[in-house]
């Protein structure tokens, strides 16, 4: 009964015939929609609502070497079209994660993108080494937007040198053939500078963006609303910031794979990221309000691509960067002709 109610809609919908495969470094994923780190735990809870192996990948909550209790409550404040969180990387530690969470994802047939977080360069290297030989591991996302004791409370991703050091250490000890993506913070003067430093240090791709640092004051208590005082702002409120970051990095680094995220709620939102230059996207905060959001976004993205005459998602990546002199024809199928889409030609003949 439960199964029926949830799965029925999936069966009724036939995804249009668009090639959704996407290449992130050396790995080809079946489609470009992923969960976002910290918004899907390790996939098991969401699997109650849809088959998580149907997504491009499951990006797991950032894992640290040791178990971690996180920050004091309240940990969340709702904001206009977004939320502020200060969870503090609560988690079971890498060993329990590998035994339970990653093992479950592997058994489920899902592609795991394991997000790792550490307090020092050495932590990251150890975490990456722990992932050698791990079943189900498709990719590593290096969360360098968490505070860093070695760098006087600064965030790694705010400094090109610190970012490069972490990426280099991870690349050195990570299993070969597994792409390493660095997840960057938008709270910097020039995100392309950090992006270049990561790529020069060996990053196979970039995840853009992490949350923005924010603060909410409770006007009843007249104190900060969060136990941790500041928190990370996420949700549709930050989407233009994220799209801008993807745009800038795509422009600066035309060939680097990008996993884009920040406030994606619909397939059209995902398409915005793709057009700005993302090869794949993560659906994060929206999951809290709609547990089926990632699979829904995937369906909607496929429809949106088909409606615009694309036969593959790859054709759309970075298309918003095309020179202004290239005018696309008007009409219900605007990009069809430019891309020589056969489906579009068929329609013309009819």
């Amino acid at each position, binding site marked *: 009964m439960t199964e029926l109610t949830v799965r029925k809609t999936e069966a009724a919908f036939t995804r249009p015939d668009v090639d959704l495969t996407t290449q992130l470094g050396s790995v080809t994923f079946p489609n470009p929609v992923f969960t976002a780190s910290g918004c899907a735990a390790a996939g098991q809870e969401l699997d109650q609502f849809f088959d998580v192996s149907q997504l491009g990948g499951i990006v797991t*909550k950032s894992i640290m070497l040791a178990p971690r209790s996180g920050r004091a409550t309240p*940990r969340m404040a709702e904001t206009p079209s977004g939320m502020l*969180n200060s*969870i503090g990387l609560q*988690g079971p530690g890498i060993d329990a994660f590998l035994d339970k969470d990653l093992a479950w994802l592997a058994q489920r047939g899902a592609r795991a993108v394991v997000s790792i977080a550490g307090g020092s360069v050495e932590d990251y290297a150890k975490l990456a080494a722990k992932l050698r030989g791990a079943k189900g591991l498709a990719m590593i996302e290096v969360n360098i937007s968490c505070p860093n004791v070695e760098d006087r409370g600064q965030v790694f991703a705010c400094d090109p040198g610190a970012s490069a050091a972490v990426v280099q250490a991870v690349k050195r000890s990570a299993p070969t053939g597994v792409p390493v993506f660095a997840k960057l913070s938008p709270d910097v003067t020039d995100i392309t500078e950090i992006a270049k430093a990561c790529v020069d240090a060996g990053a196979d791709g970039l995840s853009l963006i992490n949350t923005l640092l924010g603060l909410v004051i409770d006007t009843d208590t007249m104190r900060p609303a969060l136990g941790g005082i500041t928190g990370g702002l996420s949700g549709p409120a930050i989407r233009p910031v994220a799209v801008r970051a993807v745009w800038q990095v795509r422009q600066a680094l035309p060939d680097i794979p990008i996993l884009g995220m920040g406030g994606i709620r619909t397939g059209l939102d995902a398409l915005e990221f793709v057009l700005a230059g993302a090869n794949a996207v993560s659906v994060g*905060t*929206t999951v*809290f309000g709609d*547990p089926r959001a990632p699979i829904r976004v995937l369906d909607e993205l496929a429809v949106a691509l088909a409606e615009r005459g694309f036969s593959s998602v790859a054709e759309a990546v970075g298309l918003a960067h095309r020179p202004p002199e290239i005018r696309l024809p008007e009409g219900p199928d605007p990009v069809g002709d430019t891309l020589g889409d056969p489906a579009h030609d068929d329609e013309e003949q009819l």
Partner: protein
Amino acid sequence: MPVQVQGEVLSIRRVGAYFAMTVVAPGMAELTRPGHFVAVQVGGPESSMLLRRAFAIYDVKERGVYGGTVEFIFSVHGKGTAWLARRRPQDKLDLVGPLGKPFRLPAERVTATLVGGGYGSAPLLPLASLLRERGCRVDFVLGAGDQHRLFGQLDAKRIATSIEVTTDDGSSGRRGRVSDVLPELLDRTQSDVVYACGPMAMLRAVTEICSSRGIPCQVAVEESMACGIGVCMTCVLPVIGDDGKTRMLRSCVEGPVFLGDRVRWSDVGTIPEDVVGSITAQAGH
């Protein structure tokens, strides 16, 4: 296993200071047990409020003219609940539920005391019916700020052997708190178990009274949640496990029902130093 359902409002009515909303939500009723909760999307599909609002399930009907329904009680606290209060029959409502771990039922015929604060009595009323069906004796203590914030008095009277009412202002029942009348009632009824739902301060007081008498109590906590399904990690509180170690547990999936004496009430809102994985003065998100 919860379901996500596009429900339809069947009815909304005022009950004192609260609203009672019944939603046609096929597939949810038959899975629901007392203590389960439902997470409701607010503001419509283009809403700027992204997070669901969680409410304990009050009543369910598996079948009916309209199919299965769930009913929950809420009060207007902010924009989200104000929007909810403006829903009218046939409006669409996206629900996820049933969520959480329900109250555990005793294997034997016991004497149970149920303590509800405000509309915290909502999940206790179906629990009371279930306990009565199993041959248990049920006594109620209901407390609230004033008479308008009491919920379920009539239901409770019908189901229970006895009912005690307290209000802070004395507008109904005895002036005071549930904790003022609970000790005497427990002694009089020789209660074997206690179930409670309401504000955290009340749950703490109930737990202390039960612990001093060696009576096991189950409490359903109210923690603020973002997702309700266990992925966001916002609704945690320090709970002692079977191994004696304290962990920050999610009240949405490991709760909302906990054994009262396992919750470290004085440490709620903090990360105790001896919690598994504690780092003092840690930061990060």
